[in-house]
């Protein structure tokens, strides 16, 4: 199995009047074929920024300052705008958080599918495009007659499923899910995620799953990477992070979700509030909120500690 996506030492900066803000700081990870990686963290930690840089969707003030992104053997940072257009959606596609904003409200689904096929040179006939689109909608569980509908005629869950169908239209190698179900109800959420994972088994694509709901991620991903303030602080197979987290932040995140089983215990959560990237302290970034912080955490940035199937950055691991 080869790697579908390799990200090496990625840095993304936002250039503002008050100086640079480093939203993604030296991030590296690999996703292999048919595997799923979860990126978890709070809002503002840089997880969506990573997703946008994989698609090269960044516009100023955001800037990829250095690093390498290799998708299916191609370095996408060196592609021209024209090449990018062909590359996007064919090799890598994305489901955004709010499906409301990525479907065109004044065009029927049928036409939106047709445009997709036309631009990527799959077919020029409307009839054929319709047939292909019908098949896709069937896969995600929407009756094909709804192709004639406008986006507002569909319910939220259906709209999100239509977007997923569209993302899968060109059989991409990598699917990015950026909080695909945050706006939906739990029942619909599970329904959609189960569908995606069925499809993943069937069509053998890789998934990058971005969410802040770590309990959901534990259930659906093979590997989980926990981000804090622009850095991946811990990465490991999901079951290992769940049972035996090393970084205090992973432990805190995991303990922020009350369980449905067992006794109701008092839970702590994580004190304090997320780090402001404008003033990054010396040493470890989690120092102010960490219950295990010692003197060294305020002085020196932790080095990487390698595990069998992952790594973490912490002076005082659990």
């Amino acid at each position, binding site marked *: 199995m080869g790697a579908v996506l390799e990200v090496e030492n990625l840095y993304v900066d936002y250039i503002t009047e008050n100086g640079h803000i480093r939203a993604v700081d030296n991030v590296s990870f690999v996703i292999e074929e048919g595997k799923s990686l979860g990126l978890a963290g*709070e*809002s503002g930690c840089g997880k969506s920024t990573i997703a946008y840089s994989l698609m090269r969707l960044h516009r100023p003030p955001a800037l990829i300052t250095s690093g390498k992104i290799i998708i299916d053997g191609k370095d996408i940072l060196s592609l021209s705008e024209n090449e990018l257009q062909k590359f996007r959606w064919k090799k890598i596609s994305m489901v955004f958080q709010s499906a409301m904003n990525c479907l065109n409200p004044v065009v029927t689904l049928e036409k939106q599918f047709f445009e997709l096929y036309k631009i990527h040179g799959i077919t020029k006939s409307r009839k054929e495009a319709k047939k292909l689109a019908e098949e896709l909608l069937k896969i995600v*569980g929407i*009756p094909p007659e709804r192709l004639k509908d406008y986006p507002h005629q569909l*319910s939220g*869950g*259906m709209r999100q499923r239509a977007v997923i169908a569209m993302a899968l239209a060109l059989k991409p190698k990598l699917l990015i899910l950026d909080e695909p179900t945050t706006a939906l*109800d*739990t*029942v*619909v*959420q*599970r*329904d959609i995620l*189960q569908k995606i994972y069925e499809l993943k088994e069937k069509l053998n694509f890789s998934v990058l799953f971005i969410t*802040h*709901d*770590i*309990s*959901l991620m*534990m*259930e659906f991903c093979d590997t989980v990477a926990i981000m804090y303030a622009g850095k991946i602080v811990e990465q490991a197979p*999901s079951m290992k992070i*769940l049972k035996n987290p090393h970084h205090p932040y992973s432990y*805190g*995140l*995991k*303990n*922020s*979700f*009350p*369980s*449905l*089983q*067992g006794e*109701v215990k*008092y*839970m*702590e*959560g*994580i*004190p304090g*509030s*997320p780090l402001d990237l404008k003033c990054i302290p010396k040493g470890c970034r989690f120092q102010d909120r960490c219950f295990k912080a010692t003197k060294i955490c305020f002085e020196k940035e932790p080095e990487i500690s390698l595990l069998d199937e992952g790594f973490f950055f912490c002076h005082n691991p659990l």
Partner: protein
Amino acid sequence: MKVEENRKPIFSAKNVTMDFKVARKGIFAKKSTIRALNDISFELYPGEALAIVGESGCGKSTICRIAMRFYKPTYGKMYFNNENIHELKGEKLKEYRQKSQMIFQDPFSSLNPLFNIYYHLKRPLQLYHPSDKETMYKKMDEYLTMVGLTPPKEQGEKFPHQLSGGQKQRAYIARVLAVGADVIFADEPTSMLDVSIRLGILNLLNKLKKEMKKSFIYITHDIATARYFADRIIVLYAGHMVEWGDVDKVICNPKHPYTKLLIAAAPDPEREEKIDLPVIRDKDTEIRQWTPESKGCPFRTRCPEAREICASKCPEAREVESGQFIRCIHG
């Protein structure tokens, strides 16, 4: 639903039904009616939290809005200390408005961006508890410390944009305390906040409940936090109470098929085995719309156990175990 005979409910709803008129397509079409709530009854005791869970569009927030007197219910009544809240006037109305307060979902828009936090606390204090300047500031600092905004002198001077989401929600809770509310309607108070912050807010609400004997109606779609915070729970489906009772009984041993579905769908990493959702999807919509003419059990089109009788008669409420009620013929 009585837990102790001698306790008096502070807030209660009796057979509340709410109809909304909605326009159909076309200008000459007749208006149709949607029944958002059907026969809702509950009691809330001092120092207790009652969770209301259900999917979006099931009527959770409508209950809040009726209690806040935005709407008058079509049938049924709501009582605060044995007085019908929709017939209050004058001083009594002012008292009710003081004693019942709401916490909104979005702390980013519930505070006035042009004024600092002290201002938000000062206004209700001036209105309801007038006193001289010094005691007022002392009181405000007390409230700020209580909700965990320390040091209060510094935090009180801040403007909303200088606070993070969790701090804003805390500041808003301080405002609710300054008003002097006894019944607090929390409409998804944590869903806009970061995961690491949520539990802090829930712990704060829990503290207010236990130490200050505040009562809460906690509206949420997250059944896990409902279990963490609430004492009793109501599961709402299409405006009907389908299952209600003690939170542990309902969540650990759900009887109604919809509650079972909700709990199966909730993400829980500690669940070992794979689950299979017993979902049957509605053909057209995912949320069932209820009209006054609708008959039968609201959940029957998605229920795996539905039988013929479910289509003709709305099931009566019955007690399956002490302190656990369902509205379903099965289970």
